[in-house]
């Protein structure tokens, strides 16, 4: 028996009680992250990837949210039954978190230095002065020019990209073993996106931490991840090393996602229109019977709606939730 994985989410079910009924936002998801590894979770908006990520630190609103089933093992210990005090010692100290919206994720009334220092003081009990020095050091790490002066600036004095750097600095300030980044580049300009991804990759190398990267952009996945988990309608539909996934996607949904990446070499010709996956994500209030993707799938056959397909290992390290997966090999 080897040492436990850094993070092991097993059969996680998160439901939200709404006026219309129970929304099964996360419906039996299992994701594992090893030390120093970057795992990417991909999927459309509303597929449950953000809820999964937030649940790891119990940041979803409970109620209406509820962890119905499953476990979240952090270095072998289950987070699910933990009380608020134990959760606090994991948040930021062990697992850092970066949010999607850098414009609103910082408190506008405190300087960025104060906000970073607050985290450090909470977990390492440093003095105000030492914590502020650490904050400046972190700003230098995320390549913000003039860090010792900028710690005294307020969030509104930073651009979106710079604010995301501040968020990264804050998330890394206590040297977490895992960084969860929830669509860290979605709200940014394309040029800034690349910079932030580079920064994430660099700091990850330097600090030797693992990254769980939530995104809907396949391009981001290709650039950063070693392993990819594709989610659809609250379930994992495919999981594979990044090369294997791009080389031979085994789930029609993943295939569609990859086909929908704009490609410069094929752009703007009459015969190559950018492909989109038809239809919309099914309601998680009343998920369809059988395979949840069947209604939008170009390969669907009557058997697809007969029963829920299982997530099967089609080839070593490559799992897919499709009854016809072997045909795509």
């Amino acid at each position, binding site marked *: 028996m080897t040492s436990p994985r850094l993070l092991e989410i097993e059969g996680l079910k998160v439901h939200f009680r709404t006026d219309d009924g129970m929304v099964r936002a996360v419906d039996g998801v299992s994701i594992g992250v090893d030390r120093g590894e970057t795992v990417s979770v991909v999927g459309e908006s509303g597929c449950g990837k953000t809820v999964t990520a937030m649940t790891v630190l119990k*940041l979803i609103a409970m109620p209406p949210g509820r962890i119905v089933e499953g476990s979240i093992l952090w270095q072998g210990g289950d987070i699910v039954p933990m009380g*608020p005090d134990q959760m606090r010692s*994991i948040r930021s100290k062990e697992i850092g978190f970066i949010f999607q919206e850098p414009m609103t994720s910082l408190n*506008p*009334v405190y*300087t960025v230095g104060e906000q970073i220092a607050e985290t450090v003081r909470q977990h390492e009990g440093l003095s105000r002065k030492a914590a502020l020095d650490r904050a400046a050091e972190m700003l230098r790490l995320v390549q913000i020019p003039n860090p010792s002066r900028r710690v005294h600036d307020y969030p509104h004095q930073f651009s979106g990209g710079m604010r995301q750097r501040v968020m990264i600095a804050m998330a890394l300030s206590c040297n977490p073993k895992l960084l969860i980044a929830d669509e860290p580049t979605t709200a940014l300009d394309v040029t800034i996106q690349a910079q932030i991804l580079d920064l994430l990759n660099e700091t990850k190398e330097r600090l030797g931490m693992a990254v769980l990267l939530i995104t809907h952009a396949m391009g981001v996945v290709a650039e950063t991840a070693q392993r990819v988990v594709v989610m659809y309608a609250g379930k994992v539909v495919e999981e594979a090393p990044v090369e294997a996934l791009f080389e031979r996607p085994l789930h029609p949904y993943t295939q569609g996602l990859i086909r929908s990446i704009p490609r410069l070499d094929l752009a703007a010709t009459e015969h190559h229109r950018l492909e989109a996956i038809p239809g919309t994500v099914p309601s998680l209030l009343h998920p369809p019977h059988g395979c949840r993707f069947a209604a939008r799938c170009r390969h669907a056959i009557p058997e697809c709606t007969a029963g829920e397909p299982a997530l099967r290992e089609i080839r070593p390290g490559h799992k897919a939730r499709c009854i016809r997966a072997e045909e795509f090999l």
Partner: protein
Amino acid sequence: MTQYLIRRLLIAIPSLLGISVVLFTVLALAPGDPFEELATNPAIPPEVRANLRASLGLDDPIWQRYFNWLFAMLRGEWGYSFVSRIDVDQLILQRLPVTLVVIGASQIVALAIALPVGVYAATRPYSIFDQIANTLAFIGFSLPTFFTGLLFILFFSVYLEWLPFVYRTDLSETGWRWWWEQLRQSIMPVMVLGLFQGAAWTRFVRSAVLDVIRLDHVTTARAKGLPESRITLRHVVRNALIPVVTLVALQMPIVFGGAIVTEQIFRVPGIGSLLISAILSNDTPVIMAVTFVFACLVIFFNLLADILYGWLDPRISYR
């Protein structure tokens, strides 16, 4: 900042001038005459009355009277009351402390209710506490102070006979007894005003906190591993205070208006009852001076709101 203050104070001058012009004109055009009672007195011949009017400059055109008043004000001469024959500034200085104490205490009561109740209710929306607090707040600010004031008097003074229902400035007690009597007679006016304001602000604080509590940066604070109490105080209440402080400062003049009614009910000899008796007896210099003091208060609290706003929110800069 200093520059901003100076400029704001300079801007206040034309506002005050404008207000004084409007007040003066309205009062001059209003029917009624301070010498009306003399007209019905057969012992005073009409010539004496006319002479009296002329000597006081009441027959001059409005604009001339206005400038007379203005220059007198600038010299610090507020005129004297037609009715009580006392200098207006002395009259106001006599009455103002009582009003300030009653209003000040009631505002402290209001905030002491609104802040904790509003914050606590917002952190547990739709809980039993929240629903009770909401219902009470709704009742509280639906009932006008002249109604609750009478209700209080009926219950605490007439029925229970616990508290005096007339506010007296000539208490005969000394030492601790004096403070005790002072407290007893202040409780009802302070509570009536305080509960009313507190009810309105509770709802405002609750909604301000609810607005902040769902913002992204609060989730960030939670992800930082901060204790819930620190999140609430530093990251929720601190931000929610920005609109609350502004509202409180801007509402101050309205509170003074509300105090007029309350003072009348409890016979508190404050600036509000002074204004009412002056209006009833056509005592123009007193009306003019008291309303002008109110105007100054409005402008002062507006300035205070702006300064507090910039102090609480670093995104606002004074230019």
